């Protein structure tokens, strides 16, 4: 099979796709310069965004926000950074020292990397060398970004584990569960983009959005991405890992001084990263927004201008982050996971199939009217089916609950592996409680389901 598939793909193309036009030919000093530039840009943006966030949130809450350090308080975050640097560095005695120290580094370094693959602009000239405003690009750039981003999870996980303390452990687990869950939705939302762009190289994707932004034609993907990007960065309203009420400060509970700052830094850089990625994949990257792009034969799409558009777009997205934080209450953990697994992922899958089908139909020369007709019929059928199935599903579920209610077991405080107090309506497994059957009710659905859960494993 494979041999023939390979033939189908064409062996000649294998070599061809291994290079991306316009990259890999820079002299070393330009590379160094670009590295440094990205680095500085990220640090500055972090410092800026932190203050920006505090000010915006303050404004939303009718407060003033930071206003002491520097002009109008804009140096506040720099001062905070220096302060953290000077604080005592505590390593708890239960901690696994090496991992404990490595964890913040592991979480920070990947954060810096992502930007290396983001196109900040078209070709410019630096000291006479013509080069693109992007550190590098590869045929699988987006995949690489995903890989880099997800390796940051190790930092969180290891931080939680190495602290040797229950809260960080739970926090670390939660955040990694969260990140990987939302990473799925995020990755799935990219598929449609690749489908249209025909490439995974970031510059190529920006290239292909010359006519229209994918945010418009692939709006559902964009929405999924926006939601999951917030989840991926553990930001409000999805900031469960550091839910103060439950877990103190999540995986960072035992951290102090600059190590804590590292996590903080990583979080903010990641915010910038995902915003930049959104810009690249859905918002046309460095291309000037529509009215501007029409001006002067696309003059705003050349030279250093695009950097401005790019940063502007990123800033808008960052503002959305802050806006969300300022307005939305935190989700509950189960609601959050439910959203990820039961809404975003199935939706993404269906969307991919739909997009694929449509594009295939177009490639095969089916007319638009026919497509709309088929889609309309399919939608109608789907709605009818889903209606019926949900109706039946309810019935079945009722049946099942009935039959399983009889077997309702007393509440086991250790069921999840960790001792938890019984919820209201649940009976502890005390001798007295065991004789009393818990009242039948919807409270118990979750409990009976979880008894089955493991059978899958």
């Amino acid at each position, binding site marked *: 099979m494979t041999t023939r598939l*390979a033939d189908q793909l064409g*062996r000649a193309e294998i070599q061809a796709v291994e290079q991306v036009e316009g990259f890999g030919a820079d002299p070393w000093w330009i590379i160094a310069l670009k590295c440094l530039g990205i680095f500085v840009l990220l640090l500055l943006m972090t410092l800026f965004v932190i203050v920006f966030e505090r000010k915006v949130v303050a404004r939303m809450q009718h407060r003033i926000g930071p206003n002491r350090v520097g002009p109008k308080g804009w140096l506040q975050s720099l001062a905070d950074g220096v302060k953290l640097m000077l604080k005592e560095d505590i390593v708890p005695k239960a901690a696994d020292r090496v991992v404990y120290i490595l964890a913040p580094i592991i979480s920070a370094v990947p954060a810096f990397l992502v930007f290396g693959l983001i196109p900040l602009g078209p070709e410019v000239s630096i000291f006479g060398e013509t080069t693109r405003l992007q550190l590098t690009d590869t045929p699988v750039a987006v995949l690489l970004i995903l890989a880099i981003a997800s390796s940051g999870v190790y930092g969180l996980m290891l931080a939680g584990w190495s602290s040797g303390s229950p809260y960080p452990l739970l926090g670390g687990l939660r955040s990694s569960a969260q990140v990987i869950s939302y990473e799925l939705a995020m990755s799935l939302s990219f598929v449609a983009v690749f489908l249209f762009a025909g490439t995974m190289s970031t510059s190529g994707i920006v290239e292909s959005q010359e006519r229209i932004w994918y945010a418009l034609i692939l709006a559902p993907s964009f929405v999924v991405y926006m939601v999951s990007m917030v989840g991926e960065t553990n930001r409000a309203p999805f900031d469960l890992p550091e839910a103060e009420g439950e877990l103190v400060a999540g995986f960072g509970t035992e951290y102090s001084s600059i190590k804590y700052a590292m996590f903080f830094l990583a979080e903010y850089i990641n915010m910038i990263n995902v915003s930049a990625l959104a810009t690249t994949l859905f918002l046309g990257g460095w291309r000037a927004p529509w009215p501007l792009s029409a001006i002067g034969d696309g003059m705003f799409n050349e030279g250093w201008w695009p950097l401005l558009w790019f940063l502007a777009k990123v800033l808008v997205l960052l503002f959305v982050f802050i806006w969300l934080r300022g307005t939305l209450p935190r989700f509950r953990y189960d609601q959050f996971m439910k959203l990820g697994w039961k809404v975003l992922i199935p939706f993404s899958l269906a969307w991919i199939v739909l997009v694929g089908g449509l594009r295939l139909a177009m490639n095969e020369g089916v007319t638009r009217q026919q497509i709309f007709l088929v889609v309309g019929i399919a939608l109608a059928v789907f709605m009818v089916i889903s209606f019926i199935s949900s109706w039946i599903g309810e019935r079945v579920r009722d049946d099942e609950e009935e039959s399983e209610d009889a077997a309702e077991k007393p509440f086991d405080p250790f069921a999840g592996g960790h001792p938890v107090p019984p919820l209201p309506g649940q009976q502890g497994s005390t001798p007295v409680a065991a004789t009393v059957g818990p009242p039948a009710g919807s409270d118990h659905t979750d409990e009976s389901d979880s008894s089955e859960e493991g059978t899958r*494993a």
Partner: protein
Amino acid sequence: MNPTSYLVLATILFTLGSGGVLLRRNALVAFMSVELMLNAANLAFVAFARMHGALDGQIVAFFVMIIAAAEVVIGLAIIVMIFRTRRSASVDDASLLKL
């Protein structure tokens, strides 16, 4: 392209993996060693695919990845199950079945 160095690396990984399975007593570690073996195979496949200028080796690597994933799922399930029943993941502790 000369695949020798890749092959050497793959072989080293494979040896490490198989050594791990045979020598390590923790089921999880042994299990990860198995994954290492699979990845060594992947590396070898990809290297050979380059050498032959064909894609099929890479496709195999894909499949091996899925299978490795499936193995992870199954293996974790089994190990967790054992761990829950006896609170230990050591291969040596699992010794009810003796000659």
